[in-house]
């Protein structure tokens, strides 16, 4: 355990819900895959597949925040929905606190759905417009069997926790709230089932900057108070740096780089990560970007490029990149301190001219 960069907070071991112990990752994702069929013709045959999530493996340490970044369409939301079991996976395993999920011997699905909760980007459409927010928050626990009185009391307590005065807001409807307030309701609703892992999919992206700061502070407070683990998906690279302990970078349905946040931001290894980070805007008008660091759009995930999927946009592309897919390495055996990148330039002896010389054992 000494090599772990993110040692789990002391409280983690005292959590009565803990089954696997503090060293057991909260969640292990092993080789998960989702291809969406594209159907056509009168027979509705599958003519092609969108390779939205293509063999992804990683783990989330108890008590950490894992940031996930990547361009629009790279599969971040699909990955989140797979973890939540909102869609079926084609392949791969999920291990929640040491137990296999959704297979005969493991955690039943509703157990998973309790332990994992998700906050969506579109705070407007994810709240029922006809329910006062107190009832929206109480809904989940009621379905799980809590009495109406208990669920209501808990909902009011949660509203206070997310900074909404219950006697002012309990009876309001979603359209009577601002964007930031609605997002607080969504967070309260996700917390109502006492989850251990919260997946935040662009949860602050639609908020303006001053409200965004309020919600980010709230998330940090709640994490400490309630002993939570976060997966934080966002296209705002500044926010991801601020909130994450580790960062996972996705490109076209795959992980291209993963590691501790400072290593990723200060010493990105994959050319895609480097380009993505260069897209951050400086607040100094003297530092204007003259040319976009990443030209063009990502390739079509129906027919991803051969070899390294980034080769069509990579300034360092060589022959080997077209013929051979670079490997990320064994993520599940690596420590949380390790920094891994799927690029031929970092792998000794890969055949790329910039690769380090092969070291002999």
């Amino acid at each position: 355990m000494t090599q772990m960069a993110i040692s789990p907070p002391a409280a983690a071991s005292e959590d009565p819900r803990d089954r696997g112990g503090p060293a057991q990752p909260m969640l292990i994702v092993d080789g998960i895959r989702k291809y969406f069929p594209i159907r056509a013709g009168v027979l509705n045959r599958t003519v092609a597949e969108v390779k939205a999530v293509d063999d992804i493996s990683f783990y989330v340490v108890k008590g950490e925040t894992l940031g996930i970044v990547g361009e629009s369409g790279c599969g971040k939301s699909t990955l989140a929905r797979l973890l939540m079991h909102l869609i079926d996976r084609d392949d791969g395993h999920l291990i929640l606190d040491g137990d296999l999920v959704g297979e005969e011997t493991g955690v039943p699905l509703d157990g998973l759905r309790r332990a994992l909760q998700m906050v969506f980007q579109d705070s407007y459409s994810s709240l029922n417009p006809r329910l006062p927010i107190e009832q929206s928050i109480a809904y989940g626990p009621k379905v799980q069997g809590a009495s109406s009185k208990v669920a209501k009391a808990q909902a009011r307590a949660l509203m206070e926790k997310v900074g909404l005065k219950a006697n002012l807001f309990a009876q309001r409807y979603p359209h009577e709230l601002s964007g930031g307030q609605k997002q607080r309701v969504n967070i309260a609703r996700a917390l109502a089932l006492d989850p251990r892992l919260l997946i935040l999919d662009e949860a602050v992206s639609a908020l303006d900057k001053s409200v965004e700061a309020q919600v980010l502070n709230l998330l940090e407070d709640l994490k400490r108070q309630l002993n939570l683990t976060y997966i934080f998906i966002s296209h705002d690279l500044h926010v991801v740096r601020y909130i994450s302990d580790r960062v996972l970078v996705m490109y076209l349905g795959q992980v291209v780089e993963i590691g501790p946040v400072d290593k990723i931001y200060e010493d990105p290894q994959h050319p895609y990560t480097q380009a993505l980070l260069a897209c951050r805007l400086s607040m100094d008008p003297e530092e204007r970007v003259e040319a976009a660091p990443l030209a063009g759009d990502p390739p079509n995930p129906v027919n991803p490029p051969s070899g390294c999927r980034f080769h069509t946009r990579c300034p360092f592309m060589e022959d080997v990149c077209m013929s051979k897919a670079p490997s990320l390495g064994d993520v599940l055996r690596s420590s949380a301190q390790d920094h891994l990148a799927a690029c031929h330039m970092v792998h000794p002896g890969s055949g790329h001219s910039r690769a380090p010389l092969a070291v002999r054992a």
Partner: protein
Amino acid sequence: MNDMTPTNLSGSMPLAAPFVRVKDLRVRFVSREATVRAVNGVTFDLARGEVLCVIGESGSGKSVMMRSLLRLHPKKRTVIEGSMQVGEHDIGAVSDRVLSKLRGSTISMIFQEPMTALDPLYTIGDQIVETVRRHEGLGREAAWARALELLELVRVPSPERRLKAYPHELSGGLRQRAMIAVALSCRPSLLLADEPTTALDASVQIQVLVLLRKLQREMEMSMIFVTHDLGVAAQIADKVAVMYAGRIIEYGTVADVLNRPQHPYTRAMLASTVKDQERGVQLEAIAGSPPDLRALPDGCSFLPRCGYAKPECAVAMPPETVDARGHMARCYRVGVEGQRLAFSAPAIQPSVCTNASQLAAARAEMLGRQA
């Protein structure tokens, strides 16, 4: 560049008359229940070829102000006062017929949500051709050639194919670029862009910004660009106007406003923006929420959230204080020292108040000390 005279400090002092002049613009929406005062006296000038970024939090009146310049508000329920001059046209006075001619030719707008501006039933090509033909009287073939040229201009890959595509067949970034193409199709002199990049991810946003800036320079367009992202303003603005509760509370060159902000709201907004802060340290969020536009207080509208308030702040909205460079702020604590705006606060500061009770205590202390 070598003879910088003192009168030319801001670098881009317009010599000719400004192209856009907005004076004391006020917009309110009247309904049986309430009157919403969305814009409460906005005044600014914009030179030809200049880019003004309007920043401010959600609900501060940015979109309402922009839509007024095209008179896009529901006629019956909207009261607009003040004057808006674009070129030789008085936007408040021109007939509907003249106005619809101006729309899309002299003045063009890119909307917050591209899907609402593009018609889902027509291909991108048809929509550009339609606009070009209506305003420039080109024949079908010439208009189609122009449409192709426009898609090439905004760097849409395989433009021939994309001209025949429907809006839903394009990715968010391509759709936004297609909308820019439609907006530019008649070489407008004034482009109104309402958060054109907010819905895009970082890599596409930067492509669109670089493109817009280049086209704006080449076509010598004036541009008003609304955003709540300070990084975007830093990329594209010549001038920046900060809006709060329907008023411009700070205005100046992009460098003055972003690097030397004077108004407490601008300062708080900059401090709350997430940018390389240390992890684990609380962000300096602005406590409280924006004012209710149905019942604005008499004094400074930022007072309930301001850590520097003093008694006169509650009496009347502070007047404009302007320095020799044209940097303006509306705050009783901002004065001019030498040539420049300067903020003077009491020696002991409430520093940063991150929650309402902390703020209330600091304000009570401050008001007590001043009284």
